[in-house]
Every structure is written in structure tokens, then in C-alpha cells.
């Protein structure tokens, strides 16, 4: 297996992109990534496109071929990847495998979701497809409902408080304030979160990531030629993935995502690092409780101790570990298919020292944690700056 490097990244502004259709979003992120890699569209050998449910959002399927079309990539293999909210992270892993195996040399991975053309109710129903349709959605559960169950159990077992969950949103909005690509540029307080509208007790509106339009793209190349395109190629030191039961009730625990634990353990082993070596992480905070659970599953804090650590500011930028410097899903926005790619884009900028206004000092090793559904898929990548 060859070492694989990220040689170019691109992102659209996240938010309510009323003026842009899915094609414009793809082109905006994709062309930015090609330009960043200083590469021509004719040099691309394959594309993997992550998108969760564009068919239900805007009636458009077949989006990987559409990405190749929009970017003028010619007749290369184009493959859509769907793994619910982990579609982006999974697409990145498909691209990684294609380059690592030697099958392809230069590969583009993209992620896109155009979500604001439908009502909040329709979007919630479409996203519900990430759960077990028969056993969860038909019975009335929604994703806020599933994560609310996890939050309640976490509160019961570890004494986690609503204020501690709110602290995740406050931190991520603060980070987003410094990210020009973020959906929200609004600082919020603990009280703002606690007083926001109840969605699924105990999760309030400001505990939930928003509905977002956006796209992200990355260009991958074998490490040995990466310097030809980019002075600071970023090594993909590990790309791991695991799955679990779709139904939350069938899992071993409500307060931990086993697939994330497995994927991260394998990633640490493969990259030969420990959680302590990670300088910066982008984790899947679809709801504030999810970031608390992620901190524990990834081994950054002992079980039951993450909420307090977050509240104490230990995961703020340049804290013990800088978490969700982009603003995360909560502050930067969550165009589901694009999120997993965006996480790696943010880590790439951090490791290159290009995260304007939110740079983690001396960041050398970063991690991304992308979760599908309530934890039936988890994808973890570890990225390293190569000196």
C-alpha cells in the first residue's frame, strides 16, 4: 500500500445558499480544490462523491457523475458514496483506498448537500432515513429524538448537565465566528442555549446542528509525487471505518458509539500515535451531546469526564486539545454529505498553518471523526504534516 497525501482542498461558504444550486456548490468547492492543488482537470483519474440524500432533498441522484461533469473531469470513473451523515468521510476513505492500492494516482473526493430547498419537516424526515426506518422512524423517533435519548442516559449515568452540553455549542459558535466559511457568525452564551426552543428534551434548538447547503472537495495523490503539486502535502496517516447496528436500542450502550471506538483505536494503531498526540480534531457534533460522547470514544478524556473538561475550556482552540476549530457541525453548518470532507479540509488548513483567525499553534497531527446516523457508521482519519 502506498502512502497517500492531500494535495489540495476546497470549500464553499456554508449556509442558506439560496442563490446556488447543487451544481454551483460542487463547482465552487471542486474548482477551489483543483486550484489549491495546482492541478489540471485532465490529470484527475477518478472521483468519489459523498452525498446522503440529494434525491429526497432536490430530486437529484447520480451526483458523482454530475461532479465530474461540473468540474470537466472527462470520462473518468465517478462513484457516489452514501453512508448517511458519514457519506463524506466514507468517500474520502474510498479515494484513499483507490490511491493507496495503486489503482488510481490522482483522485478527487467531494461531498455535497443542498438541504434548504425543503421545509424543516421534510428535511428531518429525509435525515431520518439514517436510522432504522421500521423500528425507529415509523415509531415516531427523529434524529433529535435519538440523540435526546443518548443525552438523557449520559446525564443519568455520568451526571452530565444541560449547561455542559450548552458549553459545546458556545465553544463551537465562538470558533465559527473566526471561520469565514461558517454558517453562523454569532457568538452565543450558555443562557442563549438553555433558553432556546425545546426540540427534543433535553436538546434545545441551539444544541442541534443546522440545516445547511454546502460542498467540500479534496485532491489526493501518492505521497511520493505530492510535493510536485503542493509544498505542504498532508499525509493521511490512517483511514479507518467501522459499523454497528442501525437501531440504537440494539447497541451495547446508549452513551458510547462503539463503531467510533473501534475505528479510532485502529486508526491510532495504524498511525502509530495515541490520543495524546492529537493536536486538533474535527468531530461529529450533530448535537452537543455527540461531541461529549466523541471526546470519550476517541480517548481524549475518560468516560464521564469529557463534559466537565469541555466546560472548563480544555477543548477550546489551543486548549489541551483543540476541538472543532471550524465551528464543527453546530457552528460551521452540517450539509450532511459534505461534512466528512469539510472536517479533513479544516484539519489540512490547521496542519498547513493556514487556519486564519483560529490557528492551533504548532499543529502537527489532526484527527477527523465522522458519524453516520446515531452511530451505525463511524469513519476516523488521522492526518499528519510531513516535515
Amino acid at each position, binding site marked *: 500500500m502506498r502512502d497517500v497525501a492531500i494535495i489540495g482542498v476546497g470549500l464553499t461558504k456554508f449556509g*442558506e445558499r*439560496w442563490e446556488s444550486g447543487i451544481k454551483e456548490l460542487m463547482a465552487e468547492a471542486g474548482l477551489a480544490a483543483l486550484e489549491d492543488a495546482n492541478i489540471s482537470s485532465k490529470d484527475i483519474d477518478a472521483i468519489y462523491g459523498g452525498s446522503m440524500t440529494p434525491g429526497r432533498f432536490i430530486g437529484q441522484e447520480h451526483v458523482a457523475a454530475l461532479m465530474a461533469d461540473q468540474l470537466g473531469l472527462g470520462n473518468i470513473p465517478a462513484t457516489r458514496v452514501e453512508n448517511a451523515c458519514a457519506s463524506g468521510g466514507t468517500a474520502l476513505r474510498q479515494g484513499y483506498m483507490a490511491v493507496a492500492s495503486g489503482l488510481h494516482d490522482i483522485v478527487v473526493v467531494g461531498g455535497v448537500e443542498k438541504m*434548504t430547498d425543503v421545509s424543516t419537516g421534510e428535511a428531518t424526515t429525509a435525515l431520518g432515513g439514517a436510522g432504522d426506518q421500521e423500528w425507529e422512524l415509523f415509531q415516531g423517533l427523529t434524529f433529535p429524538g435519538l440523540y435526546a435519548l443518548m443525552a438523557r442516559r449520559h446525564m443519568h449515568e455520568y451526571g452530565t448537565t444541560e449547561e455542559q452540553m450548552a458549553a459545546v455549542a458556545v465553544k463551537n459558535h465562538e470558533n465559527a465566528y473566526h471561520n469565514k466559511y461558517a454558517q453562523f457568525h454569532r457568538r452565543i452564551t450558555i443562557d442563549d442555549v438553555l433558553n432556546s426552543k425545546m426540540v427534543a428534551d433535553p436538546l434545545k434548538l441551539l444544541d442541534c446542528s443546522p440545516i445547511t447547503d454546502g460542498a467540500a472537495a479534496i485532491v489526493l495523490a501518492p505521497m511520493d509525487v505530492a510535493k510536485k503539486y503542493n509544498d505542504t502535502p498532508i499525509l493521511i496517516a490512517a483511514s479507518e471505518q467501522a459499523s454497528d447496528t442501525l437501531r440504537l436500542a440494539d447497541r451495547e450502550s446508549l452513551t458510547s458509539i462503539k463503531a467510533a471506538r473501534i475505528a479510532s483505536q485502529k486508526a491510532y494503531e495504524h498511525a502509530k500515535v495515541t490520543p495524546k498526540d492529537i493536536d486538533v480534531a474535527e468531530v461529529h457534533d450533530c448535537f452537543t451531546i455527540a461531541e461529549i460522547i466523541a471526546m470519550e470514544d476517541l480517548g481524549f478524556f475518560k468516560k464521564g469526564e469529557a463534559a466537565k473538561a469541555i466546560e472548563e475550556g480544555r477543548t477550546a482552540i489551543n486548549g489541551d486539545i483543540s476541538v472543532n476549530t471550524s465551528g464543527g457541525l453546530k457552528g460551521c453548518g452540517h450539509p450532511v454529505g459534505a461534512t466528512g470532507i469539510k472536517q479533513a479540509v479544516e484539519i489540512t488548513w490547521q496542519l498547513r498553518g493556514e487556519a486564519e483567525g483560529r490557528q492551533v499553534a504548532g499543529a502537527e497531527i489532526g484527527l477527523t471523526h465522522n458519524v453516520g446516523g446515531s452511530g451505525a457508521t463511524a469513519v476516523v482519519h488521522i492526518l499528519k504534516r510531513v516535515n
Partner: protein
Amino acid sequence: MPKYRIKVEEIARVWGEDAESIKSGLNIFEKSVPGIDEDSATIAVEAARRAIKHAGIDASKIGAIYVGSESPPYAVKPTASIVAEAIDASPYAMASDLEFACKAGTDGMQIIAAEVLSGMIEYGMAIGSDTSQGRPGDALEYTASAGGAAFIIGKEKKEVIAEIIKTVSYVTDTPDFWRREGARYPSHGGRFTGEPAYFKHIINATQKLLEETGLKPSDFAYAVFHQPNGKFPMQVAKQLGFTEEQIKHGLLTPRIGNTYSGASMLGLAATLDVAKPGEKILVTSFGSGAGSDSFALEVKEPIEEKRYAIEAVEKMISEGKIYVDYATYLRNRGSIER
């Protein structure tokens, strides 16, 4: 303005929603409800009669009547002919209905102004009148209300209460709010009705008007913006550089709801009730679909002698109100039938 009102608390009670957050979020407290025998035609006739009385002219001199509404009682058959006959302006008059969501009334003002300026007619009347619909349970229910206003436009200087200095429009194909043929209630694009619709069109029309007239926001004593809720006009005023003081007299929605085609025209009527000769008024309407008409007006001397000819808008809004419960509201709106 119908005398019936329903409070936000009463609607929120039925749907299990939080009245306080709706009141603070939308800056709306109560809205007008049409009586069981009121529709946009009866409201148009009422407004037309008051306008004739205010102008003190012979109705037979009205050469054109345009009624703007998105809730005409007939899908086919004009309201304008009902009004023309009711006020004795017919039969030798142009009469037609206009539709442009909430701005059809100000479209009528522009058309009448053009016909007066061209010499086609001596006087013309533009009416904006609605008994707007909101699907039960839809967020629109807190604001969609009933009311109307009529303006007579002529060019006899000794009669003019306010001169139209300039008017411009801004229009794009923006599907933010619509009602398809045969549909009972309108559909809307939720948050899409804000930034890319209301704000974009009002801001562009108003800025174009300011550019063409060379006037600044501070040159106007008053400003009126379309008011689908109580919050948007305050936000758009601030973005354009107008103060709360400038818009307060014309901001009626918090107390009467969104009267759609009547909204910016009623705001102008209420502002004229307090304006003094020499003062300038800016009015920018908004209609979904989408467009804005912006007007720069200067108040003239005859306003003083005509001021008390009819009841002031403020009096209609605040006096003789009768509060109804949600069931009566549904009955009056025709949402339930026996």
C-alpha cells in the same frame, strides 16, 4: 379595518405554541379578523367611500379604478366593477383588478399616476384590499389579517395632499410565496421569504429611488415599509439607514396583522394622518413573486384642511375593537362551515 381582532395568545393556545416567543419573535400582538359578511370587495368599497369623502370630489370624475388583492371574492369577475358601481364612478370608467401578492395596491397607484400624468384621466383610484388566508396551524396564521386602503390620484395642485416626487420598481422571478389555482391556502418558502425575497427587493427598490432622487434617508420625516410581521420592517429600516422614529407611525402590523395589499398603503394613510406640509415620506411595498414599488412623497398644504374629513387610521385601529375566539375566527374566515 374590520373591528374584530384575535390575539396571538388565542391562536397559540389552540396550537400549543408559546405565545411569548411568537410575540417577541414576530413583533405581533393581535390581528384583525373580517366579519362574517366582510370580504376584500366590501373592504375595498368602504375604503373607496372614505377616500371620496376625504378628497371631496365628485365620484363620477374618477376615470379609473384598480383594486389590488390576493383574496378577491371571485376568481373570475372583477372587484373593481363592484367598487365603481358602489361609489357611482361607473359606467364611463376603466376598472380592473390587479394581483401582485402584497404589492398590487401600490402597482395601482403607479398605473393611476401614469394615466393622470398622460392626461388620459382626471382622477383615478388605487385600492389595496385583502382578507388574507393562512392555513390553520401555519405560522402565517399569526399575521394574515384583513383591511384595505384607497388613494385618489389627481393633479389639481390645490387638492393634492401629497405629491409623488418619484416612484421606481424592482422585480425578479422569486418564488417565495404563492397560491396555485384552486388552492385554498397559500404556500411559502419559510425562511426563504426573508433575505432573498422581502429584504432583497425592498432594499434594491429603495436604494434605486434614493439614487434617482438624490435624497438621503435623513431627508424623509417618515418611512413606511411593507410589514408582513412587526420585525421585518424594523430590520429593513435599520439596514437602509432609517430610524425607528421615522417608521413608527406607519408600522401597524404589530396591532392589526399583515393586511397584505393593504399593508403599506394603510401605513402610508396612518402616516399622512400625522404628517405636516413640506415633510417627505418614503414608502416601499413588497409583493411576493417578487417585487417592490418605492415612492418618494412630499406632503402639501391642502392636507391640513382635509385632515379631519374622515376618521383617522389610528382611531379605526384602536377603538371599538371586538375580540373573537379561535372558533369564531375560523367561522368568520370560512375555514369551517355548517
